[in-house]
C-alpha cells in the first residue's frame, strides 16, 4: 500500500527493539473478550486508476452548475470562483496543517485568519469576528445561546423568514437547553412582522435574516430598536454574503451579533458543505463568542506576530463552562473566503453585487411583464418569489430534461405558498438563460 512505508525488514527491526515477535502481539493489550472475531466486510483496495473511474461515474450523475442552468439559491449560491483561489488553497502548507497550537510555525494560517477576521468585520460593519464556525445555521444557534447566557432570559424570537433549515437546527440546539423559540410571522410585504416582536416580553434576542429567505431586504434597524427597548440582543443572519456589497451593514443598524453563511465567498457548493459560518459581534460581547480568535502580538525580538487568543473561553480550558463545545472549525474555508475577498477587493465586491442585482431585477421584470405574479413588492437582492401558472410542474420537469432547474418550490417550506417558487440569479447566468426561462414559463 503506497501510504504505508514499512518493509518487512523495518517491521522486524522495530519488533526486536520492542521485544515482541509479531505486530499482533502488541494487540494483546486488548482483552480477548473485546477483540472482534468477525472479518471486516469492506471492499478490497482499488488502484488509483480504478478508483478514479469509479468516482468519475458517480460524479457524472450529478447536475453540476457547469452544465445545468440552476435558478436556485436558498442558502447555496453559484458564484464564479477565480482559478487562483483553489490553486492557492491547495498549498499543502495550509491544507495539511492543524490548528495553530504552535504559533512560531503557523504564522501563515494565523496571519491569514487574522486578515479573514478583519475582512469579515469590514464586510459586516462589526467590531469582532471569529475565526469561523461550521455554517450559518450552527453559527446562528451559537449566537442565540450567547444571548441567552448574556441576558439570562430563556426566550428568543426568530423570524419565520430565517432559512427554514436554520430554524430546524435552532430547534435541535435550543430545545434541550430549555430555550423557548417564538416564531415571528411575515407580512404581505414579504418582511418579518415587527409588531409581533413588540408584543413579546422577556426575550433574550431576536434573530432576523436579511436578505431573508424570500430575498427581501429587512429593516434591521427597526428590529434593533425594538429589541433593545426590551433589553434583548439583536441578531442578524444571512445566507448570501455578496449582498453586503450593496446593503447597509448590520453593524450600522444596531445589530449586536451577526451569524451568516460565507459559502458565497468563493467556496464550492459541494452538495451543501463544507461551507463557512461567519460569526461577528460588538466588542462588548467579545468574551461571550464561541470558537477561536486570532490576535496580534510581538515576539521576543519585538517582531509582529499572531497567536490564538482569549482561549480561556474555550472547551480545552474551561471544559463544561466553555462558551461552546467547538474545537475544529472551518479554517480552510475561512482562508478560501479571505482569498476570494482579497481577489475581488472593495471595488470589485461592490460591482459584483451590483451585477447580481441587475440580473435578478431583469428576470423579475421580464416575468412580471409576461404576467407572472411577484407576490412581494419589497426590494430584494438576487433572489425573489414568483407564482408560476397552474400545471407548471410538467414545465418544470421538461426544463429539467433540457438542463434548466427552474427555481425551488416553496410549498414544502411554507404550505400557504404552494405553487410559488424561489428564484435566484447570480452573475453566472446570462440574459439568454433568463429569456429562455421566461419563454418556457409563460408559454
Amino acid at each position: 500500500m503506497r501510504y504505508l512505508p514499512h518493509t518487512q525488514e523495518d517491521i522486524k527491526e522495530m519488533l526486536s527493539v520492542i521485544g515482541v515477535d509479531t505486530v499482533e502481539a502488541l494487540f494483546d493489550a486488548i482483552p480477548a473478550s473485546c477483540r472482534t472475531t468477525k472479518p471486516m466486510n469492506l471492499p478490497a483496495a482499488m488502484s488509483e486508476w480504478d478508483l478514479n473511474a469509479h468516482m468519475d461515474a458517480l460524479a457524472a450523475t450529478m447536475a453540476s452548475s457547469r452544465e445545468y442552468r440552476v435558478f436556485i439559491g436558498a442558502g447555496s449560491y453559484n458564484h464564479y470562483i477565480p482559478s487562483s483561489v483553489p490553486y492557492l488553497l491547495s498549498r499543502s502548507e495550509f491544507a495539511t496543517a492543524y490548528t495553530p497550537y504552535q504559533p512560531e510555525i503557523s504564522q501563515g494560517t494565523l496571519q491569514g485568519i487574522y486578515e479573514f477576521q478583519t475582512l469579515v468585520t469590514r464586510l459586516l460593519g462589526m467590531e469582532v469576528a471569529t475565526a469561523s464556525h461550521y455554517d450559518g445555521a450552527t453559527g446562528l444557534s451559537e449566537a442565540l445561546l450567547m444571548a441567552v447566557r448574556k441576558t439570562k432570559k430563556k426566550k428568543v424570537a426568530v423570524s419565520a423568514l430565517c432559512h427554514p433549515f436554520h430554524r430546524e437546527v435552532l430547534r435541535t440546539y435550543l430545545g434541550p437547553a430549555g430555550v423557548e423559540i417564538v416564531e415571528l410571522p411575515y407580512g404581505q410585504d414579504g418582511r418579518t412582522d415587527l409588531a409581533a416582536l413588540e408584543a413579546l416580553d422577556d426575550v433574550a434576542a431576536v434573530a432576523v435574516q436579511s436578505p431573508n429567505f424570500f430575498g427581501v431586504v429587512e429593516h434591521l434597524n427597526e428590529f434593533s430598536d425594538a429589541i433593545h427597548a426590551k433589553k434583548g440582543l439583536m441578531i442578524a443572519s444571512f445566507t448570501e454574503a455578496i449582498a453586503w456589497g450593496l446593503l447597509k451593514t448590520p453593524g450600522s443598524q444596531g445589530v449586536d451579533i451577526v451569524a451568516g453563511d460565507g459559502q458565497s465567498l468563493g467556496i464550492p457548493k459541494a452538495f451543501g458543505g463544507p461551507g463557512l459560518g461567519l460569526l461577528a459581534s460588538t466588542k462588548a460581547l467579545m468574551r461571550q463568542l464561541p470558537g477561536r480568535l486570532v490576535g496580534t502580538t510581538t515576539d521576543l525580538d519585538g517582531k509582529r506576530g499572531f497567536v490564538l487568543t482569549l482561549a480561556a473561553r474555550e472547551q480545552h480550558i474551561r471544559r463544561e463552562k466553555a462558551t461552546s463545545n467547538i474545537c475544529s472549525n472551518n479554517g480552510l474555508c475561512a482562508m478560501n473566503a479571505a482569498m476570494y475577498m482579497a481577489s475581488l477587493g472593495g471595488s470589485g465586491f461592490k460591482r459584483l453585487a451590483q451585477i447580481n442585482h441587475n440580473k435578478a431585477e431583469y428576470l423579475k421584470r421580464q416575468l412580471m411583464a409576461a404576467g407572472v405574479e411577484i407576490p412581494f413588492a419589497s426590494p430584494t437582492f438576487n433572489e425573489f418569489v414568483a407564482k408560476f401558472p397552474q400545471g407548471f410542474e410538467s414545465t418544470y420537469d421538461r426544463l429539467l430534461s433540457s438542463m434548466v432547474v427552474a427555481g425551488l418550490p416553496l410549498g414544502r417550506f411554507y404550505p400557504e405558498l404552494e405553487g410559488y417558487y424561489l428564484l435566484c440569479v447570480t452573475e453566472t447566468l446570462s440574459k439568454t438563460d433568463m429569456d429562455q426561462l421566461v419563454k418556457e414559463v409563460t408559454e
Partner: protein
Amino acid sequence: MSGYSQGESGLILNEPLLWEKGKKGRCGFSLPACDVDEVCFDEALAGDGPDFPDLSEVEVVRHYTRLSTWNFGVDTGMYPLGSCTMKYNPKVNERQAGLTGFADAHPLLPEARTQGALKLMYDLEQFLKELTGMAAVTLQPAAGAHGELTGILMMYAYHKKRGEIRTKMLVPDTAHGTNPASGALCGYTPVPVPVSEEGIMRVEDVRERMDEETAGIMVTNPNTLGLFEKNIRDICAIVHEKGGLVYGDGANLNAVMGYVKMGEIGVDVMHFNLHKTFSTPHGGGGPGSGPVAVNDILAPFLPVPRVEKERDRYRLVTTYPDSIGRMMTFYGHFGILVRAYSYILSMGGEGLKEASAHAVLNANYIKERLKDTFHLAYDQTCMHECVFSDANQEEFGVTTLDIAKRLIDYGFHPPTIYFPLVVHGALMIEPTETETKEDIDHFINTLKVIAREAKESPELLKNAPIRSKVRRLDETAAARKPCLSG
C-alpha cells in the same frame, strides 16, 4: 547525533498585511460584463460597500504563497501531534472532491439529479457501520465536537422518550475538553471518573458514581494516554444496568480498526473524526467531519435527513418522528465525505487494519526507544500514542514547552503538550502509520539530542525556536489587550 538537522536558516520572506498592499482601482477578479440594464438599488437600504483593499491577481497570489511558507503541515514533515492523527493526506482524494459533479452540485437539486452523491453517502455509511459493528450512521456532523453534541442530544432524547430527565454524565479525567462542554449543552453536569495507577478507569470507580440520575458515560478508547480501557465491557454493563448509555469518542479509532468493533463491546453511540482516522486534511483547524454511529435503540433518534435506498434509487428522508432534528443546514461536510470514501476504497478493509497495526507498532517503538530518556507516565504496551513528561528534565529548569519549541528548530512539529491533564507536563506523541522508520528514528534521535542539550546547555531550549519565522510570542500581551482585527 547521527544524521542531520532538518531545520536550517534559509530565506524567509516578509509579507505585509493585505490592507498594507494594493491600490484603489485594482482588481484580481475577472468581473463579467453585464448583459442587462443597470438597476439602482433602493437608496434607503443601500450602503457603501466593504472597505477592502484592491489588489491585482499577482499580489494576491504572492501574498498567500509567502504566507504558506511560514506554515508547517504534514506534507512538510513529521507531525506527531497526539490525539490528532496527523497521517498523510492522499492527493487522489483531492481530485475526487474537486470533480465538477461533486464540487459544483447544488444541495437542493431534484433527487433524480443527485444520485451519485447520495449513493456515495449511503455506501460510506455502510462502511462505517461495518468498521464499528453499529446499526446506523449519520454523516451530518461537521466535526468531532459536533458529532459529540449530536450523540449526546440523541442520548437526551432517548431518556426523555422514556420519561426521564437525567442530569449527570460520567467523564473520565483523561477526556478531551469537548466531552464535558458537549454534555453541558444538554444540561449534564460532568462527574469525573479518576484514572487508576494503570492509566485506565476502574470498574469500582464507575460503579460508585453511576446512578439513575446519570445519563451515561463518555469513553475515549483507547484513551488519551494511548491505553486500551480493558474494563470497558464491565463498565458498559454497569452503565446499562442503571439505564444509562455509553458514548464512544472515536478520536482514537486509528488504533483499533479491524481489531475492535465498538458496537460489540457495549458502546451505544460513537463519533468518527474523518479528518483523523480517514486521512482528510486538517486544513489549519478544519473543516473536519464527525459522523455518528448508533446501535438499534438509538437509531430512531438520528438527525434528519437520512439517506435511504429503495431498490436502486437513493432518497433523502425526513419522516422520523423521534429524530433529534437537523444538525446543519444541509447534509454535512460532503466534500470531506468524498475524501474519506476515496480513502477507504484506496485502502480496502485489509489496508485499514494494517494501518492500525503500523500505527500501534510505531508508537510502541518510540515508547521503547525513548523511555530511558524521558519519563514515561505509564510503562506498558501502548496503542497508537504514548505519553511522556518532563519529569527527568525538571532539575535542569527545562519544561515540556521548551522541549517542544526546540523540536521546531530541528524541523519537527512538536507533539501535543500539557494534555492529557492527568500527566503533569505531558508530551503526547502519535506518530501515525504513514511515517517511515528513517523519519521515526530521526525524530527519536533528535529528542535524545534535545534531552542532552537540556542537561548541558538548557538556554538552547529556553531560547528556542530561533529558526522559525518568529520567535516565542507574547501571549499575555495578546490576551490583555486583544487586537483581533486591523
